[in-house]
């Protein structure tokens, strides 16, 4: 490990150090505010450390981590997203009653796992990063343990996470047995020849790995956990599960597919395509049936990951660009949506405002909140003035570039179905409220920090939706320096 190596992995180091400080702080004094401030400062410093790291990039640090523009950009993204979750959660936790300071330690740990995943270029970092991402999430999901719902959600998540880990490990073992290496780059070398090492064993391995990851990404048909977990987890954590964990896992999946040369195989492409279509259709159709906002968003996220897979399949720099933009847009949008749920539920004790009926007439009681929610829903639907618009263009363009017409068709059909339920929510928000229901939704006052975060997220949502050039420029730059074979 040379100095440059340390410099390159500085974000990981800084976050690890921040984490230790938070834990030590908790050990010395149990104080919610102190832990929150320490964690926030830690995240800011980690974000700042991306610049020094960029000086050393692109660089392979041990066989485990590849620090390049792609990794740094995504790291920045998920650090920012974690920061937003932290701010949103702060107010939410204050009203929760039970001790809240471990939350921040767990949040930083999950983020660390995410960073490791994003930079991972080796099966070992793949697996360890994934687990470091998952385990603290369990704690976060079950955080308010007095009502049974979070605990149930956490147990479901635990069991499925274990299942997916098993699939993943078995898949890795098969691939390793075929190629004799666990480094992505060397796998590509081992397969350099035409059809070299691409036998049934290898395909089984890749399929198992992909299935394991599909659990985490809640791709259909591995999406069964998603609604329950989303519903059970506290709202800011749900945002985190939906955004940070999925972004990081997706980032790694893309790197694996690109760097290890998994693309360019018709069987694999077919498999991913089938997953994509299934997710788009299943997610959207199931979302139609929901009367709970969190469950609805859960199924909509299934569909969105299907769209992401369409972008994913574009291969090469185009895929990187499309995926990065989509992840950014999806992240900002989803966080804004869950931010609204969080703000509404803040100060409401342990019951959250999630029933669709609670939102009736929100536009007239809390116009700004409703505006933010409507904008985020429009963004999820991919309508203009929001980031989702360009994200959908990217996904569709990626599908067209590879001439995958079934995928494009599913994207269109899915989007139209999607519109229907997003509009349903919007309609409810815009309806005049009845007398008795508003009382519950009125209770959520939100914290100043939460509201400010929400405002910031919505601002970004609109700004990059109207003028996407800065984000696109940044992403294009990152995609160029990914340093792939």
């Amino acid at each position, binding site marked *: 490990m040379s100095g440059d190596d340390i410099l390159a992995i500085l974000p990981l180091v800084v976050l690890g150090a921040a984490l230790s400080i938070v834990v030590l702080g908790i050990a010395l004094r149990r104080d919610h505010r102190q832990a929150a401030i320490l964690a926030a400062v830690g995240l800011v410093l980690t974000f700042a450390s991306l610049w020094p790291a960029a000086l050393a990039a692109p660089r392979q640090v041990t066989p485990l981590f590849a620090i390049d523009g792609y990794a740094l950009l995504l790291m920045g993204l998920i650090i920012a997203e974690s920061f937003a979750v932290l701010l949103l959660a702060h107010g939410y936790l204050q009203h929760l009653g039970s001790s809240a300071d471990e939350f921040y330690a767990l949040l930083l740990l999950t983020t660390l796992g995410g960073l490791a995943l994003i930079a991972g270029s080796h099966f070992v970092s793949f697996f360890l990063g994934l687990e470091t991402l998952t385990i603290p999430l369990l704690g976060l999901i079950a955080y308010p343990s007095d009502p049974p719902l979070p605990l149930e959600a956490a147990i479901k998540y635990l069991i499925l996470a274990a299942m997916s880990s098993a699939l993943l490990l078995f898949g890795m073992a098969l691939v390793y047995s075929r190629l004799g290496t666990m480094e992505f780059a060397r796998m590509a070398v081992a397969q350099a020849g035409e059809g070299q090492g691409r036998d049934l064993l290898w395909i089984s391995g890749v399929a198992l790995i992909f299935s394991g990851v599909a659990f985490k990404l809640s791709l259909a048909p591995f999406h069964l956990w998603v609604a329950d977990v989303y519903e059970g987890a506290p709202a800011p954590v749900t945002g985190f599960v939906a955004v940070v964990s999925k972004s990081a896992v997706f980032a790694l999946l893309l790197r694996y597919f690109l760097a290890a040369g998994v693309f360019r195989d018709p069987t694999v492409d077919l498999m991913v395509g089938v997953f994509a279509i299934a997710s788009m259709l299943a997610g959207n159709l199931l979302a139609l049936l929901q009367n709970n906002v969190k469950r609805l968003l859960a199924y909509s996220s299934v569909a969105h990951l299907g769209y992401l897979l369409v972008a994913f399949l574009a291969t090469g720099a185009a895929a990187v660009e499309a995926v990065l933009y989509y992840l950014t847009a999806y992240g900002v949008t989803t966080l804004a949506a869950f931010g609204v749920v969080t703000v509404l539920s803040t100060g409401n004790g342990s019951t959250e405002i999630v029933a669709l009926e609670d939102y009736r007439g929100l536009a007239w009681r809390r116009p700004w909140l409703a505006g933010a929610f409507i904008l985020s829903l429009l963004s999820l639907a991919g309508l203009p003035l929001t980031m989702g618009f360009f994200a959908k263009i990217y996904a*569709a*363009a990626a599908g*067209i570039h590879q001439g995958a017409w079934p995928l494009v068709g599913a994207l269109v059909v899915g989007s*139209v179905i999607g519109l229907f339920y997003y*509009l349903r929510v*919007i309609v409810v928000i815009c309806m005049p409220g009845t007398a008795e229901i508003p009382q519950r939704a009125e209770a959520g006052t939100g914290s100043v920090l939460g509201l400010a975060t929400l405002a910031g997220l919505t601002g970004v949502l609109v700004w990059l939706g109207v*003028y996407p*050039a800065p984000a696109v420029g940044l992403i*294009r730059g990152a995609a160029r320096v990914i340093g792939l074979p």
Partner: protein
Amino acid sequence: MTLVWLVLIPLLGGCLAWLAARRSPAWARWISLVALFAELALLLVPVTGGHGRWLAEVDLPWAPPLGIRFHLAMDGLSFALILLTAVLGILSVLASWTEITEKVGFFHFNLLLTLTGVVGVFLALDLLLFFFFWELMLIPMYFLIVVWGHERRVYAAIKFFLFTQGGGLLLLIAILTLSFLYFRQSHVVTFDYLTLLKIHLSPGTDTLLMLGFFIAFAVKLPAVPFHTWLPDAHTEAPTAGSVVLAGLLLKTGAYGLLRFVIPLFPDASVHFAPFAMGMGVAGIIYGATLAFAQTDLKRLVAYSSVSHLGFVLLGIYAWNGLALQGVVMQMLAHGLSTGALFILVGALQERLKTRDMGKMGGLWTSMPRLAAIAMFFAVASLGLPGLGDFVGEFLVLLGTYRIAPAFAAAAAAGLVASALYALLLIQRVFHGPPSGTGGAPPDLAPRHLFVMGIMMAGLVWFGMAPQPVFDAVAPGLDNITAFARIP
């Protein structure tokens, strides 16, 4: 930069109106009115900055890495349609002056945002920018229907949105594919209309892409199999919403066909023309027939729109100078006459609390002014010579007759049917014994009279001296026909 302001004024006006409504609803009304007058004024000052075919043009980078540019340009066609937009915008603000009493600020915000989208659609020359504005119109329109609409507004709004958005996604796919094909030919990522005109497409692809565009526009127009959202949306929307829908949103479909479908895919369009014209004729007859069968006033007017827009479709695909001039005239005149009818129906509904013709009758005595004006617009709509609609429909028929006499003949039959429903409307609502709806509702207020006066003047002008309009539009149409490379 004038063009940028054309887009920005309604947008800023809308935001301002929304914010100002906190103080007093009147502020919102006045601000939107002022904004739209400013828009009108901006149009009427001589536009400069254009070169070549365009009256004005602005071309700024928007999302450079994606090849999307903020490219706006105005020719005679756009000019005429934006003028219509501004006028109808003013009229709808006036029409909803007393009708809308709740959430006034948000209403005007949505109204002006819709107009922003419409203006943008008429100006955009970058395909993705066009799509952006195309989608932008929908959301506020959706809100207009869903918040201030009538009984079945949710159903109508969602239906409207799904239909148009479904078409919109096809459009998006087609645009992206087109750009991608161009990229394969020239290795340039662009969505620029003028550049994409140069693309060479194989016949099969050609037709598929054309269909993608066509369906999106045909839904909006609406051409017959795709029209089912329209009666619902028009019926349930508030008056201003109906006016904007019928007067402007439908025109964007026609504009899209004129501007994009035929120039971009001339060969496919030639092959497709008979089908499209068939759809047009079907729309004319079908719309007229159904209008005849309605008891709901607003539905009647809505179906009459289907019928009138059939002429537009017919004329566009006839694709000769005469027919196209007729199309433009029809679009303008229909905007005024149908808009006026919707305002009148709105006024009636405001007074009688019903749109059911069965419950009306004999209103001539209680509301002579309203009745007289309604009579005027009804006959305008049935195509009385001397008024704008007649010019438009007649020119379309003449133009079509040159190409396809059979279609022209069938369309003319539809024209007869339109006389039936228009007169039926007058007869049922205003003649006959008064039905006891209790009390004598007040007649039209001066504000309404002013609005109606403007529209009547416009229609008479279009009918009596259409030549200035043709002169203004002609270069734009030449423009399009030149692009289209069709003999």
